[in-house]
């Protein structure tokens, strides 16, 4: 085992995000030095794991804790430190809260939402096609579709989307918003959700917020604040990530015309394509939500001591050549694809099945309605987001 006392500490992330390109450093680390010491812009230094097997262990093994982050100067990308909420809980507390909503997001329940999602997607594509060419895929399809789906599911008025979409950005902001602004947005989001919850006490509803309110009132182990935070988190996370991934997926496909043609020729590949794109797109710019070792654990040949935080690079794990042959190649027909794009372990994305369905619907609707889709501007002119936890486009002018 390596001697950790002399380990040098590197700044992380290694570089500023360059579109959807992954820093070549990760491939070298996976090969030579799978666990290194890093320092994020704020908080204490941490370990960083880059191999698939190690990342899965850190995220999935009960010897690692998120609850132990409470009270620590957590490694993070913005000065603001959010404490509390489901992402700073371990089982059984985490389970108690997650159970409230997990049943609404099973593959079976999500499948029931597919026809309605396709109908909304068709209406939105009508608008896209009427507006151009060229027209902005982000504004016409990628943003409104996930918002309408999560609003229907939770029972949030779509008419309020301008408000909560703005506030939700605080959840994924690193430097895009000032600390004060980010805090104000989060306070607004919580207050807004608190209002919807209070309404349901007066007038019960069948939507997910209504179900959460009933469960909370029947189980006094759940605090009002926990329910508000969970509902607000579902609303924000429930659309920010999918809104970002839709243009990322389309961007990658348009940059791989052979694979796009393959998908057009064989529509049965759509579910595989979504998995492969989840693997291939390095959505995260940096690492967050360090896991704290509860006891000494050996990871990647290094002894991590009890109490030390470990970060993981999911984009790196998803390019691990020992798991994904020819890992840097996009292969929409990849058969074995245990990517970690939705995370792993108890904090595995609760909305993963919903996101999958939405992403499949988007590919299907574009293949049906705009099979000749192409960028309407040179690639170099595409505007990329900055100061956020995720990579993505602010606009994507397309023609067809």
């Amino acid at each position: 085992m390596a001697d950790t006392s002399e380990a040098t500490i590197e700044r992380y992330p290694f570089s500023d995000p360059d579109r959807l390109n992954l820093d070549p450093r990760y491939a070298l680390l996976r090969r030579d030095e799978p666990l290194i010491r890093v320092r994020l812009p704020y908080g204490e230094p941490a370990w960083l794991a880059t191999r698939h097997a190690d990342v899965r262990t850190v995220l999935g093994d009960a010897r690692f804790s998120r609850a132990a982050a409470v009270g620590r100067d957590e490694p993070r990308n913005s000065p603001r430190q959010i404490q509390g909420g489901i992402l700073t809980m371990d089982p059984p507390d985490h389970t108690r809260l997650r159970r409230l909503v997990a049943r609404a997001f099973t593959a079976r329940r999500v499948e029931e939402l597919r026809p309605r999602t396709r109908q909304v997607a068709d209406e939105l594509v009508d608008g896209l096609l009427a507006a151009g060419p060229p027209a902005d895929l982000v504004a016409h399809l990628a943003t409104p579709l996930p918002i309408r789906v999560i609003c229907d599911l939770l029972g949030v008025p779509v008419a309020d989307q301008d408000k909560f979409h703005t506030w939700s950005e605080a959840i994924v902001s690193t430097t895009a918003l000032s600390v004060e602004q980010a805090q104000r947005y989060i306070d607004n989001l919580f207050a807004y959700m608190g209002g919807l919850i209070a309404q349901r006490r007066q007038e019960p509803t069948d939507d997910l917020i209504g179900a959460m309110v009933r469960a909370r009132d029947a189980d006094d182990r759940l605090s009002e604040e926990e329910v508000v935070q969970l509902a607000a988190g579902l609303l924000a996370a429930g659309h920010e990530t999918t809104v970002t991934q839709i243009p990322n997926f389309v961007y990658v496909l348009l940059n791989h015309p052979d694979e796009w043609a393959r998908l057009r020729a064989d529509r049965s590949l759509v579910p595989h394509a979504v998995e492969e794109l989840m693997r291939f797109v390095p959505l995260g710019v940096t690492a967050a939500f360090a896991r704290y070792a509860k006891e000494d654990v050996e990871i990647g040949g290094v002894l991590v001591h009890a109490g030390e935080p470990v970060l993981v690079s999911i984009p790196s794990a998803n390019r691990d050549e020992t798991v994904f042959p020819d890992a840097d190649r996009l292969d929409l027909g990849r058969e074995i694809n245990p990517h970690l794009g939705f995370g792993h372990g108890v904090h595995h994305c609760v909305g993963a099945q919903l996101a999958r369905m939405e992403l499949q619907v988007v590919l299907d609707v574009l293949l049906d309605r705009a099979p000749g889709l192409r960028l309407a501007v040179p690639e170099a002119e595409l505007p990329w987001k900055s100061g956020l936890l995720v990579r993505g486009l602010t606009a994507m002018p397309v023609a067809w």
Partner: protein
Amino acid sequence: MNAEEKTTGSGWRLHVDPTRCIGSGICAGTAPGHFTLVEGLSRPLAERVTPAQEVIDAADSCPMEAIVVSDVESRRQIAPGA
């Protein structure tokens, strides 16, 4: 209903459908004493278990509903719930 109220006394049976399992690792994290990942897919550590809330939680948390908990004697499904 809590774990004690659901049993007939002869214990529970755990089954993971490998064709449904996506290896999310949620069950192994929720109930590490009952589930483990083998080559990326979940497997119960023991098929017959003493009733425990933790296994209901694991079955109810599985997004694929790949885990079924049933009563050994009556064969009644205990989790996941509807």
